[in-house]
């Protein structure tokens, strides 16, 4: 393949590196043969070297900053046996393995983000060699730079709202001997009405919570409600939101969430954070975000 186009185009498959890979396949080892797992993007000048020394990556590997164009991607070499396309596909179906990778990934991002603005990269972002990492930086350079400016000094707080546990089930399981079919229907009707009302209150409350908190935040993102089978929560998740807060306002925000929790009796609120701004990497209006 000849490189007939702009040599700096990072997404051009006809670049010399790929040709080098092919010819190196004969036996010589090259850096392009390794897989690199990417965790986050930072400004080159802000690369948190000290923090990175204290963590290990998803494969227990050391994580370092690979620099390019004024940015750096925090990455670590991972074995192709686990992280190449085929094996990765299989591994990710194993919830235990997935959990291990997710937690290790988060710990790297968390450590790096303690004193530095980081753009978290989506999980299982694997590049071919350091060249691949540099291509990642080059292809997203403007977006990364804009995002770093936008997210500097901000953290993410997660708020989940659950419908408060329904009152103890009425003794409807064993219909009394005297209970007639009509009584049964009446009872069921009353139960449904009560349940509908509870749901309405829950929804209204969740809306109030979101509006209040979104007004306090620089940004808000709604994630889909969490599935009971994954969360193990008995109560229904009605709001699963992320709020972008300047870090010095974290305490005030957390306090406000506590206040809301006390006010909304039909709801149970759960606060998580502070997170690196995972949910805010995409600018508003660029998909994923919902007003």
């Amino acid at each position, binding site marked *: 393949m000849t490189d007939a186009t702009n040599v700096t185009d990072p997404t051009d498959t006809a670049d010399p590196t790929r040709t080098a890979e092919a010819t190196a396949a004969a036996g010589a080892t090259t850096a392009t043969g390794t897989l690199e797992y990417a965790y986050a993007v930072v400004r080159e000048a802000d690369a948190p070297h000290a923090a990175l020394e204290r963590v290990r990556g998803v494969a227990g590997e050391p994580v370092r900053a690979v620099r390019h164009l004024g940015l750096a991607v925090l990455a670590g070499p991972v074995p192709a046996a686990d992280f190449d396309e085929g094996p990765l596909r299989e591994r990710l179906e194993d919830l235990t393995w997935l959990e291990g990778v997710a937690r290790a990934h988060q710990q790297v991002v968390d450590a790096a983000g303690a004193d530095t603005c980081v753009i978290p990269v989506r999980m299982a972002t694997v590049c071919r060699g350091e060249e691949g990492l540099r291509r990642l930086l080059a292809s997203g350079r403007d977006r990364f730079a804009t995002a770093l400016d936008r997210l500097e000094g901000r953290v993410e707080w997660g708020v989940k709202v659950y419908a408060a546990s329904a009152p103890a089930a009425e003794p409807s399981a064993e219909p009394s001997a005297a209970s*007639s*079919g*009509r009584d*049964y*229907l009446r009872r069921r*009707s009353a*139960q449904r009405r009560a349940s509908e009302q509870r749901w309405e209150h829950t929804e209204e409350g969740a809306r109030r919570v979101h509006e209040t908190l979104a007004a306090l935040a620089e940004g808000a993102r709604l994630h889909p409600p969490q599935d*009971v089978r994954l969360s193990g929560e008995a109560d229904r998740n009605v709001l699963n939101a992320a709020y972008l807060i300047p870090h010095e306002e974290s305490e005030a925000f957390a306090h406000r969430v506590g206040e809301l929790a006390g006010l909304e009796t039909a709801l149970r609120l759960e606060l998580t954070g502070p997170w690196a701004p995972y949910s805010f990497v995409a600018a508003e209006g660029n998909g994923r975000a919902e007003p």
Partner: protein
Amino acid sequence: MSRKLELDQDTVERDLMKLVLTVVELLRQLMERQALRRVDQGDLTEDQEERIGQTLMLLEDRMGTLCERYGIKESDLNLDLGPLGPLLPPRE
């Protein structure tokens, strides 16, 4: 060897029952919803109300018994339709 086969049969039977009961539960919910709607509308005679009510009551009772017999939690009765979400709505 034969013990393993036994266990498999139990599981197969339980899974099948779970599927059957899920469908029955769906029908029960649909019928109940329909019945209550018609009661609200005043569509049914007292006699009809009574009979429908009895049927639904019996059905609910039977479902409970079957679930108990097969060690199935009523909250487990559901079918995942992928992008359409679960078959049955969340429990009240």
